[in-house]
């Protein structure tokens, strides 16, 4: 009898340690007083009338902490590049075509595609008005392509268009940031007229919806690329192994 | 001065050879032989000077004995012979005890070079033995000399002699040093148990193997000069020097006889035994004497 298997000492010790840590951290956090200082968020809420975006989270994401979002988009872009770097080379070498799985599945998914994309676009465009925004919408768009891939393994995305969308939206986003410097003497300044209409209307909030649309395009194309690579990875593995 | 030097050399030459003859004679008598006459060595040297030289190995072989003789002569003139006279005082004052200590080695070095040039294995063997012996042999003597220098606070021999006039003879004041120095002296005179370099029974003549004719004569002559100089030095250091020729001969002869008697009694050490021995008892004795001077003087 293997004693090590019966008594996985490492696991026991680590679980005990985790529990001990859990208890003490919880004990510590219970004492936390959260209202010592006024949160910066409340100030943002007060300022939010000026930005004229109905969704305060959106104005924080795209405007008050807008550079975070630039970074975030960059992170996603880098991850996509990384995934592409890792997975693209092997996929090119294995270029077989497999049999169509099912016509109904294919047709149904195509039917659903437009609906899902439309929904994604709606989420993106209404990012400054309702919950949602560029990221969320982008991911929704990517799920449409996921569906497509699941239905039709031979499906291929046009990388040219995706890259174009991705690059242009990204570059425009950066340009928007820089234009702020020239127009408002502050980077990412809200140089577009705002509030143009009532808060809660579609065209309001200056650059905020513009930024979110750009983000949406970028995230949508990037996530689609990621999805394609991962889905196809699995698929090609099976094909190549066979 | 030149006259005095010549006189001194002649004196040393004669006395040295006579002592050497006496040495052979006394040894023989103790060993129950008759031995040669006292003047035999003297005659030998004269004879050798006039004999043909059969062998030469180039100029270094030629110069070696000359260097050795030069060292001996230089040593001789730098040792004050008479304590209260101005005899060669202007010469001896140019050197000191340390000069003498090192001059005593210069001569053998010259010889060793000549021997090396000759390339005879036995000669080299003798040289090597002699040099190895030196490690131990000089030690008690050095200690004694250092002790005396520190006691007198001077390395000037004349000063050491002068000190003995007031403070008493060093042999009485520092007997341990004297014993140490005497043991070394036995070796310096090539007497048993330290007669390792020559070692007549084993290597048939040690360093002198290849020498003959005038070179051998020169080596013999310088040997007697050197022996005389060493005796005078011991007399100067321990017996307060000699103020007249008679005293000089008396004192040197006493020392000489003492050395002979020590030498005859013992058999020869091997070289490492000799060094080992010399580093133990004589050194210890001398160091004790020295410690007395340094810490309690």
């Amino acid at each position, binding site marked *: 009898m293997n004693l090590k298997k019966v008594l996985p000492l490492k696991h026991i010790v680590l679980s005990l340690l985790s529990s001990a840590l859990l208890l003490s951290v919880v004990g510590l956090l219970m004492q*936390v007083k959260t209202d010592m200082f006024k949160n910066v968020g409340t100030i943002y809420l007060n300022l939010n009338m000026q930005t004229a975006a109905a969704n305060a989270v959106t104005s924080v994401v795209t405007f008050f902490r807008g550079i975070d979002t630039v970074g975030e988009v960059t992170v996603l872009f880098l991850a996509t590049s990384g995934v592409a770097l890792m997975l693209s080379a092997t996929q090119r070498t294995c270029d077989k075509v497999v049999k169509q799985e099912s016509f109904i599945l294919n047709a149904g998914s195509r039917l659903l595609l437009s609906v899902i994309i439309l929904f994604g676009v709606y989420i993106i465009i209404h990012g400054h008005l309702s919950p949602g925004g560029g990221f969320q919408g982008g991911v929704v768009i990517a799920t449409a392509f996921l569906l497509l891939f699941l239905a039709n393994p031979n499906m291929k995305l046009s990388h040219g268009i995706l890259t174009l969308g991705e690059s242009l939206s990204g570059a425009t986003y950066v340009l928007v940031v820089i234009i702020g410097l020239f127009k408002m003497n502050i980077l990412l300044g809200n140089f577009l007229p705002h509030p143009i209409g009532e808060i809660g209307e579609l065209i309001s909030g200056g650059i905020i919806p513009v930024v979110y649309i750009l983000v949406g395009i970028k995230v949508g194309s990037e996530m689609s690329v990621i999805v394609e690579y991962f889905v196809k990875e699995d698929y090609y593995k099976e094909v190549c192994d066979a | 001065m030149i006259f005095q030097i010549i006189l001194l050399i002649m004196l040393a030459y004669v006395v040295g050879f006579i002592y050497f003859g006496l040495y052979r004679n006394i040894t023989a008598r103790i060993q129950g032989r008759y031995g040669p006459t006292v003047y035999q060595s003297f005659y030998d040297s004269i004879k050798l000077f006039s004999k043909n030289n059969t062998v030469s190995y180039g100029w270094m072989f030629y110069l070696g004995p000359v260097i050795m003789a030069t060292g001996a002569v230089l040593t001789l003139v730098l040792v004050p012979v008479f304590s209260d006279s101005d005899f060669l005082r202007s010469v001896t004052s140019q050197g000191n005890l340390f000069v003498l200590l090192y001059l005593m080695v210069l001569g053998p070095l010259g010889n060793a070079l000549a021997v090396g040039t000759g390339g005879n294995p036995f000669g080299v063997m003798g040289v090597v033995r002699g040099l190895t012996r030196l490690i131990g042999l000089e030690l008690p003597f050095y200690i004694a000399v250092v002790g005396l220098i520190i006691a007198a606070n001077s390395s000037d021999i004349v000063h050491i002699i002068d000190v003995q006039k007031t403070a008493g003879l060093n042999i009485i004041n520092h007997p341990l040093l004297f014993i140490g120095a005497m043991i070394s002296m036995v070796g310096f005179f090539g007497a048993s148990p330290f007669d390792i370099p020559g070692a007549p029974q084993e290597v048939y003549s040690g360093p002198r193997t290849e020498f003959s004719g005038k070179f051998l004569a020169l080596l013999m002559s310088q040997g007697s000069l050197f022996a005389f100089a060493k005796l005078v030095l011991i007399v100067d250091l321990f017996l307060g020097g000699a103020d007249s020729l008679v005293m000089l001969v008396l004192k040197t002869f006493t020392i000489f006889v003492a050395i002979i008697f020590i030498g005859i009694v013992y058999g020869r050490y091997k070289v490492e035994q000799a060094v080992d021995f010399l580093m133990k008892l004589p050194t210890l004795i001398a160091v004790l004497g020295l410690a007395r001077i340094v810490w309690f003087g």
Partner: protein
Amino acid sequence: MSLGYYFLLPVLFSFLTPYFKKLGSFTLRGSSILLSLVLFLQTVAYVGVKLPQISQFSIKPPLGIAFILDGYSLLFLLIFTFSALVVSFYMYWFFEENSGRDEARFYVFFNMLIAGSIGMILSCDIFNLYIFFEITGICSYTLSAFNKDKLGLESGIKYLIIGSIASIFIVFAIMLIYLQIGTVNLGLIAQRFHLIDPKISVLIVLMLFIGFGAKAELFPMNFWAPDIYQGSISSVNGLFSSVVAKAYLFVFFHLFYLFNLGSKYMLFVMVIGAITFLVSEFTALNQTNVKRLFAYSTLGQLGILFMALSTNSSQTVSGALFHLTSHSISKLLIFLALGILIHKFKSAKIDILGNFKSGFLTIVLAIGFLSILGIPPFSGFVGKILILKGFALSQNYTAIAFILLVSIVEAIYFFRLTAMMLDKKRAKVTVKVGSVNYIILTLLAVLIILFGVYPSLLTHYTDLATNALLHPTNYLNYALGVGL
């Protein structure tokens, strides 16, 4: 001229890279060099300008995020942009020799690595800093896996795992900070940090320590570091050693002094630094792979820097910053020169690399080695003596003895390498150095000597940096938006 360009221009470049790629590899390489050159020139233009400089995003701090350039970050900015410039020239040669690599993506990650590192040192908002931390991280993971062979991927995975742990701790810390202080602006955090519950503050500091310490390769958390160096290409090693590690170190001490932690923490960091130094230098002795060897050497030097920077004495800190600069240059030189050799021999084993024959490479490598060892008249000496002098002034003889003793261990392997280079008995293979590399390496070597014989060139900036680090009043004012 705005600080934001340090981040925005590389981002713009990266987004547009697919189109540069289509215009041909020359354009791609050229544009990357141009980008590095522009950023470097911009940094040079900041030299002599009244500091600190600020560049705001969207809204005035403390509400908004801003990039603030003070003396401390200027020094690092100079190092980073200079390293980037040098490496981008070097990569021109590299891709000439190794065609068929995914050049465009490399330049994306390379430029974003620099941009992320610069972002970390410029940002005055800790959450923003975290994002740059992640950008740098992702670029480092991918760059270490860039070879896409077993070793590369292994190092990428390892780096990614460590990076994830670090980022989780940092996120946790940031969340606790926001919960307690209500903001993530560094100025306000610094102002209010001592007011919060000491137990929570310990937890926050601890988590930041683990997060940044693990990335800055401190002792019990640096077992992964040599693997990363071994798995990646040597110009990337140079960047890791002279840019990335330094950026994490920057943040570590920036926060350390902004939060104004007590002497207990200082002693702790000093001890940890000392252990890092000791263990790394001893471990380096046993290496046969040259990349691992210099990875350990980097760890060791970081150990010294941690020891010296945690003293809160301006003398020592100034010396440490000098040493840091000189170490960055030297390590860049060494890794780039080794890159040429590794390319030639297709191996990183010391025994094989020792067979090269090139007077030029021998000289520049020797200069690099001597500089790192702190031997005059090279720049490392000035750094080391300044550090020792600082310790001497605070009468910390233990640290002096420790540094000197371990330095001897360091000397063992450095001079083993030197002796191997000089060994005439080896079967020698002549290595030719291309003109671009010739210029780059000569430039680096000249800089090492220049800073060694005329340290005033650099001490001015290290003194500025020290002042800014230890007395961050101006920085805090800007971060709080006072007087903007």
